[in-house]
């Protein structure tokens, strides 16, 4: 790979300024309530400079360091999924006219351009999966409008958390595709590459200087070290066959002893797409709003059908989540639904690690239990 041009660290603000001048709302990672969240920003001073991260089963802590870097951490509980698939949004609203007739109006779509600085490889892979889900057979106009307005600036990961396993899913730590611009971070600044025409045009307007080949080689080797440092991994093999061949494995009950069925794993997962549709009538009764909201396969309502809850027990809900995420996704979208971000491990209040559960359930091949 040819040495890309270099943006010295003191000129990073010029990237943000250019984006804002172009009419983008700039969204980037910031420290909020002890976690890294992606929020609107206009100054590099808001970035999580010197922040390091400790993540493990059921644990997420930030630490201050002297590092000049802004992206020396892995991820936060949420990144870009809410920017395309909103946690709660209006689909349409209806009016009841005085003659008893009904009128339906579609909700306006969001068109404000948004540039995201600091997108991770795992989240780009997750976005590609969400694109497939929401934009294939029946394109979703709300998702599509939000997706179209996004400009994505990736920052390749150099600091894996103990919960990260993107290397074993093949999605990181170096972003492969799906970005407009990508940055390799060093102590001195950023090597900048373009991944799209929009990124190419933006790149040419930045105050870049020729990059140093040795420094770039070191920057890239940091992403490789981040890969090698990852301790978690997905079990090898055809997980769809292995999971559906072990539907009666005793481990489903064993994990259900610990699982609270709280749904945190699905809420932080960047690929989970389940949502409920809810009716919110006005108090006057003259109008009503039809909304959708993120749902979870761990909620009792998820499997409700004409008076019956199909998945009453936590074991069956956990099995639904795991057999879908690591199993039937392959058939639905040609790959696993897991991008190895590890959020479900850190944000599980009891510290369940799905990779460990998978390893136990799949270790003896397909049982004859199915």
């Amino acid at each position, binding site marked *: 790979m040819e040495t890309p041009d270099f943006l010295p660290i003191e000129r990073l603000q010029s990237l943000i300024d250019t984006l804002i001048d172009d009419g983008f709302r700039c969204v980037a990672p910031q420290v909020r309530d002890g976690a890294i969240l992606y929020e609107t920003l206009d100054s590099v001073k808001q970035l999580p400079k010197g922040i390091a991260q400790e993540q493990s089963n059921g644990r997420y802590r930030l630490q201050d360091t002297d590092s000049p870097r802004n992206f020396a951490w892995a991820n936060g509980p949420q990144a870009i999924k809410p920017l395309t698939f909103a946690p709660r949004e209006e689909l349409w609203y209806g009016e009841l006219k005085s003659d008893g007739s009904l009128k339906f109006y579609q909700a306006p779509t969001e068109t404000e351009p948004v540039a995201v600085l600091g997108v991770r490889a795992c989240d780009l892979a997750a976005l590609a999966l969400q694109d497939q889900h929401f934009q294939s057979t029946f394109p979703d106009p709300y998702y599509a409008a939000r997706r179209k307005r996004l400009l994505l600036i990736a920052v390749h990961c150099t600091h894996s958390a103990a919960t990260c396993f993107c290397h074993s899913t093949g999605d990181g730590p170096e972003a492969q595709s799906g970005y407009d611009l990508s940055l390799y971070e060093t102590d001195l600044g950023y090597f900048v590459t373009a991944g799209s025409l929009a990124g190419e045009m933006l790149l040419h307007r930045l105050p870049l200087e020729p990059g140093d080949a040795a420094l770039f080689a070191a920057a890239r080797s940091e992403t490789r070290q981040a890969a090698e440092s990852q301790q978690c991994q997905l079990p090898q093999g055809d997980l769809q066959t292995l999971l559906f061949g072990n539907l009666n494995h005793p481990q489903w009950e064993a994990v259900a002893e610990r699982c609270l069925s709280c749904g945190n794993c699905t809420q932080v997962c960047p690929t989970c797409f389940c949502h409920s549709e809810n009716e919110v009538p006005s108090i006057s009764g003259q109008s009503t709003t039809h909304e959708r909201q993120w749902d979870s396969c761990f909620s009792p309502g998820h499997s409700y059908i004409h008076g019956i809850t199909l998945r009453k027990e936590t074991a069956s809900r956990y099995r639904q989540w795991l057999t879908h995420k690591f199993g*039937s996704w392959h058939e639905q979208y040609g790959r696993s639904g897991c991008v190895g971000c590890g959020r479900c491990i850190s944000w599980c209040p009891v510290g369940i690690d799905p990779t460990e559960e998978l390893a136990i359930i799949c270790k003896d091949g397909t049982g004859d239990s199915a």
Partner: protein
Amino acid sequence: MINPYLPLEAEVVERIQETPSIVTLRLRLTDPDARHRFYCAPGQFNMLYLYGVGEVPISIKSGPQSFLDQTLLLDHTIRAVGRVTRALVKLEPGAKLGVRGPYGRGWPLNQAQGKDVHIITGGLGCAPAVSVVHELMRQRSRYGRISVVQGVKHADDLIWRDQYEHWAKQPDTQVLLAADQANASWRWHTGMVTGLLDQLHLDTERSLAMLCGPEPMMRASAERLIELGLRPEQIWLSMERNMQCAIGHCGHCQFGAAFVCKDGPVFNYPAVRELLGTRGF
């Protein structure tokens, strides 16, 4: 971009109380253009929307012929069982509601051409099957023998008795009815619907079976048909799951890798055979 979530306004033209808890609503889309464009295949469903309450998936009982001849009434037979359906069945003629659809894949009418078709239903599973029987009758010469087998829990639950008696009089048509609990006027089989399958005139080489009803009933019927000589590929069944979007987005209806709303609701038996008996899917 077409908004797949937006309902169309419809009006209740007629309300038929089938049993104390089952009502058929006959609906007409109020927009003439929408009426003109609407076309559905037997086995598909609509999302019915009750103002301020919510949406439910309900199969379309009317056959495609009614749309072609422009009578354009959408018949939906609804059992009052949940929050939305309990309110929906109270709608009176003239009331307005929302409709979006049709959705899903219907019955395999192309594969059924030239074959004997056996329609085996249980309870209100007869509703999604009525449209296909109408269609078979309308194009009668394209198909071989037709059998209609319906089972109910209690004899009082049988709806459309006149319809079954009418079909029973048609040539090359066999109608078999069963009730787990008979009453004084019940003159058909007492017991499970599977107890009737031995009576089918089953030409295993040229038959196709369509099943709709509670899953244990469909599973038992399918397995019995296989014992009687049908191959699993000759059996089709209509599935139900929680559906909120009807376009494969909301995730609730997943059954293994299938989204029941768009990959089904009608499935070939081999596609669902493994999971059908597994609790929790």
